[in-house]
């Protein structure tokens, strides 16, 4: 029981991070119907920005952890959003209105570009930072097993919950949210009604990048090492989460992320850890066979 609880905590932490990245995929898909394959690498870039920010702080002798975390989050969100904006501007906007495949290919190109440029400028080695948040609290002292939640795990779960609430509020209640949803439903109609579609799409990319930046900071704090290749695996898993939850659906992305995190940790806990990824993708296949539009996705109705 205690063991299961511990694995639940591990799974939630992992799932929260997948969910944060998955939102970027699902939002972009919702609005322009395209898989942004460079999103995983945007996440990787944000982790590098976080490492740089932490290094600067260490050099400046900042020892207050809350202060440091806030600073790193702000810096990382700012620069990563700028990346998100620039990627959309250079790689996708010029191709809007061309065939569906063109932006997909340029997304893959962008992903390779980001990976290689980080490898060249930052080096291929892993970049470690010293542990930022050490220790945690003991939740339950069960016989033979102590359930423990680390401060960094708590930080991840709490931040994700706050962000998700703020994000849901923004999409459902604010003018920007309304415009975003309008563009999602019908871009031409939204434009006719005076919504600045290009700007809304730009903001969507920036928002997705900002959430990925939070995930990037969390990964840096939690695992303590980053390299130029972390975007690939994280991107694939988050993309899977978005598809599992129903691509285009925001709560679906979060749910998908959590599910994948939980499947991974429980599969590794009770069955064979080496088949963890097989299980994740197997379940994805199963869900897609039974519900082709994902768990919370709405089937696309072709109007004639």
């Amino acid at each position, binding site marked *: 029981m205690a063991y299961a609880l511990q694995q639940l905590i591990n799974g939630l932490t992992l799932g929260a991070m997948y969910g944060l990245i998955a939102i970027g995929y699902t939002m972009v898909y919702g609005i322009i119907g395209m898989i942004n394959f460079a999103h995983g690498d945007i996440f990787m870039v944000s982790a590098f920005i976080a490492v740089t920010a932490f290094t600067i702080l260490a050099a400046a002798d900042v020892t207050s952890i809350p202060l440091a975390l806030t600073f790193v989050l702000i810096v990382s969100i700012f620069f990563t959003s700028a990346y998100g904006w620039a990627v959309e501007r250079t790689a996708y906007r010029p191709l809007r209105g061309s065939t569906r495949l063109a932006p997909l290919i340029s997304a893959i190109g962008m992903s390779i570009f980001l990976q290689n440029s980080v490898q060249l400028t930052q080096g291929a080695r892993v970049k470690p930072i010293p542990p930022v948040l050490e220790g945690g609290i003991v939740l339950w002292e069960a016989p033979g097993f102590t359930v423990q939640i680390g401060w*960094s795990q708590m930080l991840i779960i709490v931040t994700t919950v706050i962000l998700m609430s703020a994000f849901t509020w923004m999409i459902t209640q604010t003018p920007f949210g309304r415009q975003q949803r309008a563009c999602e439903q019908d871009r031409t109609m939204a434009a006719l009604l005076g919504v600045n579609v290009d700007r809304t799409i730009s903001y969507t990319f920036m928002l997705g990048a900002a959430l990925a930046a939070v995930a990037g900071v969390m990964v840096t704090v939690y695992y303590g090492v980053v390299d130029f290749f972390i975007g690939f695996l994280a991107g694939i898993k988050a993309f899977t989460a978005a598809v599992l939850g129903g691509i285009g659906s925001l709560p679906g992305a979060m749910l998908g992320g959590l599910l994948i995190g939980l499947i991974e940790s429980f599969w590794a806990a009770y069955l064979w850890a080496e088949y963890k990824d097989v299980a994740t993708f197997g379940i994805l296949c199963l869900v897609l066979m039974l519900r082709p539009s994902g768990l919370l996705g709405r089937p696309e109705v072709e109007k004639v």
Partner: protein
Amino acid sequence: MKKTLLATAVLALGGFSNAALADLAVAIAGPMTGQYASAGDQIRKGAEMAIADINARGGVLGQKLKLEVGDDACDPKQAVSVANTMVNKGIVFMHGHWCSSSTIPASEVYVEADIPMATVSTNPQVTERGLKNVFRIMGRDDQQGLVAGGYIADHFKGKKVAVVDDKSAYGKGLADEMAKAMEGKGLKPALRESITAGEKDYSGIVTKLKQAGVEVMAYGGYHTEVALILRQAQAAGLQLTVMGGDTMTNSELVTAAGPAADNVMFTFSPDARKNPDAAPVVEKFRAAKTEPEGYVLYAYAAMQLFEQAATTAKSTKYADLEKAMRGGSFKTVIGDLAFDAKGDQKAPGFVVYRWQGGKYDYAK
């Protein structure tokens, strides 16, 4: 038309004479980029220094050596294409590759092209396939596993030990041998697990180890994953001692794992830096601000092996080189090298080390 032909012929001749006078190309190959790039870096530094020294002595058989560097990123597919590139460049000797899973497919290319190779890959299969061109200047996983597994059985009696690998050719081979050696001495592993290399989250497996009450983890794989596992074990309140293989020599382990690296033990060949004959070379590396750790001196030794074999054979032809390498004994910075019929080094010897405060030394 005639003029064109003539010009072509002249050009071709020029090309030929050029080739004949060119430097002797020798090569290294390994992960120059990717997550194991630091090992590639060590190999490159060792080989560069060796070649500079050999050229300062007048080269090999009057010809200067030129170093070609191949980057396989530890990817078997890329390794084969690197091997083909190297063959095209006309190399006469190869030191590489580093990952066993790269060395094995690449060696098939080199044997076709008659190129002798000296490798540090430790998977038994590297020399077990009967390839005549493969020489191993490091021990084998089965010997390594025997020493590591034996040490665990002797020093951690009564403790729960988990055997974990990363599913790579090297990692699984080593972990299997460690488990076999432990069982041979009557210590049954409490847990046998595999992880996926390249991931960041190992909290699942860490919790599993904690649940099973494991105190010692025998690990077959690379240092990057060990650093993550140790960090996450510490966050989960699990005190874990790790026993690994030769890849744990990498000081990146210490930067990434922090103080938890002091819990890492590993097997490696006796420290070449302690070899009195190597002292001048070690000094030279330190003067150049390179600590000759890990694979640096092995790369240096591989080049010395080529130099001495070619000098004995008075030739750089494959058949002569191969005969010289198999028959001879060579004085190198890692000690005397001689090979058995399979191409394995005759005096292997693995020692158990332990990291302590950012340095490693023989474990007590």
